[in-house]
């Protein structure tokens, strides 16, 4: 028996683990409310409609190139589709009336109307480029500010429906793929450490969502008493440290547990290539492994970007949209399996062990 002598690890230096695949993207969200208007939760349908009209009027005048939509005109499936794109939260998706979205042409800036607050502006950027995301959200906010009157007090800053957003109303979020820390068993301790440093750790769909596929959204907890730049600097510093830890974990797990890594990637490939019914939760977990393999070069002929696009496409509303029909749960699992089989046919595993 040759085992374990032939499991000599492939040495992989941390330098060869790309960090950009770990921090998957970021957003800066600004919470704003109009003065003299009841907050959305407390407001009646007609009161929310007035706020929607005011904000959309201001946006139309300032940013004619933005797409403005009232969710009242959306079907349930269309709402789910924009939710899956992470343009709107679950709360906005479920708002009974008066919800709206505004999206820039390049999708880099958007806003939700009548969510928890009247207005929630979001600027997006790649990887951990929080400064760019902030510049985008800040510019939109300043433009709207010229036409709207925000609820504000000199002491507590922007007044928000929940006091946890007071002050800057700013939430900086970075999305992470933390599969290395999961595999080394350090994930829970890392999350507790982040929380001790006053960062919130949540699933990718934001507040109240579970993590799936080892994806997490990390954001600042405090919004009052630090200005925007200080919040950005602090959050970014901790997020950079998190990337460093995840890179180390990935390098370590490949060096120290090559058999386990090869097994995980083999299983993921086998199931994705051959399963006949693939539920979305399981697909997310398996693609998470493939994404990791593609990033560190153990899965070939498949890029991280391709995996990310697949993760978007296999969500229920996206599948239905692609098939242009309403699907039962089993039909979705079937189409998802067919799609994944076709897309992963070209992917191959490179031996982790030499």
């Amino acid at each position, binding site marked *: 028996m040759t085992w374990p002598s032939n499991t000599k690890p492939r040495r992989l230096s941390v330098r060869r683990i790309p960090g950009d695949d770990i921090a998957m993207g970021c957003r800066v969200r600004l919470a704003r409310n109009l003065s003299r208007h009841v907050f959305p939760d407390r407001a009646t349908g007609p009161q929310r409609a007035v706020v929607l009209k005011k904000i959309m009027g201001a946006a139309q005048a300032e940013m004619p190139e933005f797409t403005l939509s009232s969710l009242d005109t959306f079907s349930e499936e269309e709402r789910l589709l924009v939710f899956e794109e992470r343009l709107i939260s679950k709360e906005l998706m479920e708002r009974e009336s008066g919800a709206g979205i505004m999206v820039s042409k390049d999708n880099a800036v958007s806003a939700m109307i009548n969510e928890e607050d009247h207005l929630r502006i979001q600027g997006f950027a790649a990887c951990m480029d929080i400064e760019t995301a902030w510049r985008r959200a800040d510019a939109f906010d300043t433009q709207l500010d010229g036409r709207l009157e925000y609820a504000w007090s000199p002491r507590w800053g922007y*007044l928000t429906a929940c006091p946890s957003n007071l002050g800057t109303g700013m939430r900086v979020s970075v999305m992470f793929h933390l599969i290395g820390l999961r595999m080394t068993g350090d994930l829970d301790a890392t999350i507790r450490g982040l929380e001790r440093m006053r960062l919130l750790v949540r699933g990718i769909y934001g507040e109240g969502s579970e993590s799936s596929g080892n994806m997490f959204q990390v954001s600042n907890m405090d919004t*009052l008493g*630090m200005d925007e730049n200080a919040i950005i600097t602090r959050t970014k510093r901790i997020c950079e440290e998190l990337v460093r830890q995840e890179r180390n974990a990935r390098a370590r797990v490949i060096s120290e547990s090559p058999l386990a890594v090869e097994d995980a990637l083999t299983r993921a490939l086998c199931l994705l290539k051959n399963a006949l019914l693939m539920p979305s939760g399981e697909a997310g977990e398996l693609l998470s492994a493939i994404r990791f393999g593609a990033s560190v070069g153990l899965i070939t002929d498949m890029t991280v970007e391709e995996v990310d696009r697949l993760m978007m496409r296999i969500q229920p509303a996206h599948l239905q949209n692609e098939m242009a029909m309403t699907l039962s749960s089993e039909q979705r699992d079937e189409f998802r399996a067919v799609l994944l089989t076709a897309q992963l046919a070209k992917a191959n595993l490179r031996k982790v062990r030499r």
Partner: protein
Amino acid sequence: MKCEICQSADAEKAIRKEVGGKEQELYVCSRCAREGYPAITTKKVLKKKTAATTGAEVLPELVGMMIDAAIEIMNHPSPSEESVCRHCGITRSEYRKTSRLGCAMCYVAFAKELDGVVADMHRHTQHVGKQPRRGGGDDVAL
């Protein structure tokens, strides 16, 4: 806010329940309300309150309980003199249930209790950073 009994589902209704020999209002999920919360949990509820008042790791869901703790320190007002925001009509207990205020003027109506809550939550009490061109002013003088 989370159910004060199971701490996992979202709280949906208020029940009155004796906890540690004292009748107390709890916000619970529909399941815990229905099942009559058999194995209560005094410890759980009390533990969570303590955690909230120390303000070590304050999550938004805990706001309601922090308000409550603040009120307890200032002596519980009787229901008849419960504070209400004159502008949106929200009562303190409604606010406590959802952890959300009804309008910007609530910050004036509940200023006293919010003082402590905000300080615990953010560890700061003074805003710094961006200011709107002409916002606030006339409706909120805090």
